[in-house]
């Protein structure tokens, strides 16, 4: 399965985002991120199926949850 990771600002926002996506029928997994560690440092994000990324991004953005990047 092709997956993408939505980097969020903290573990708190990642949990909130996971609940929000779940309410909208999108399954996601909280991941500790190591990619781009030199740019952002340690952090957390949500792994989702790539086909859900745009919709997930829209839901999070409209709920005021800041997406740092999609990797």
């Amino acid at each position, binding site marked *: 399965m092709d997956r993408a990771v939505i980097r969020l*600002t*903290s*573990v*708190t926002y990642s949990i*909130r985002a996971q609940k929000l996506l779940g309410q909208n029928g999108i399954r996601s997994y909280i991941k*500790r991120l190591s990619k781009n560690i030199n740019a952002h*440092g340690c952090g957390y994000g949500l792994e989702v199926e790539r086909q859900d990324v745009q919709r997930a991004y829209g839901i999070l953005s409209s709920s005021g949850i*800041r997406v740092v990047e999609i990797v």
Partner: protein
Amino acid sequence: MIYFDNGATTYPKPKRVPKAVENAFYEYGANPGRSGHEMAMQTALKVYECRETAASLFHHTEVENVVFSLNCTHAINMALKGTLRWGDHVIISDLEHNSVLRPVHCMAQRGAITYSVATVQSDDDETVAAFESLIRPNTRMIACTHGSNVFGIRLPAEKIGALCRRHGLLFLLDAAQTAGIVDIDVDGWGVAFLCTAGHKSLYGPTGTGLLITPFGEALETIMEGGTGSYSAYYDMPPDMPDHLESGTVNTMGIVGLLEGMRFVEEKGVDALYRHEMEIMGLVYHALKSMPGVELYTPLVAGKSLPVLSFNVRGKSSEETTDLLSEKGFALRGGLHCAPLAHKKMGTINMGTARISVGAFNTKEQATRLCDEIKKISA
């Protein structure tokens, strides 16, 4: 020992609290928000649950705006020192605990701010008018207690919040004595900073406190350090709650606080208040009939808090509480860290003995206490 010192910290805690804390050492022993392994994630979820419960209990919509602190004083310091700038003016009340008075006074002594003290009146509208009369062009904030830890006098927080909205002021509410027994509506009342202890009427362990604020990202930090996020940056993360939570949080305390708040939710804030006031009422009427006992405030159902100060004529407050301690009753005497309140009530020289009721006190305990006070005061 019969415990009537719940204003200092509640005792006992509901059994589920120490049980949850003990269990946390086994199930939630990892560091939340630092690692990606299973236990770290489960611990982070548990901490989040506590934020959610606090946000719900205090009627605030954004879970990430719930910040864990060491205690109420820590939360108040974060809010005051993170918000106030050089030249700002603050209004406090004449019933403040040192948790508000000392940081405000300290900032004033350093020349950073000025402050005024509003006189709390028996009439709520007059109290609001007293605050309003002190507003200046540079007033930035009203910072006040929701209820006196010494005399049980409750301030009209909702009306003070409305006053702040009308004048564009920030409203800091010290809810150390009310959280858990008064329904506090952060969003509805326009509270900018709700500061409270976790270990009083929320029944969590000591070493826990809460700051709930929609203005957290705008605060200057008073402490910086690791957060597990944005770790390549030298600056603190801009996002809440990490912006205000440096270093590892008190996971065990937070787990206990969660159980304490669940206890409050299940019992019901109003029901807990009614229970405690029923006991306080019994004590109040008994003490009122004793000629050797001096009371300082009326007890008004629906308005007063279950906290009552008294003195036995001819004895210092500490002598009274020492005598009661010898008979197995735990009360506090002295100034209760609230010199302003004692100046207001004329008790600054002798302090007061304080009875503060909790969820586990009974009428039978109250009757035994009153019998003992009667003997001491005869």
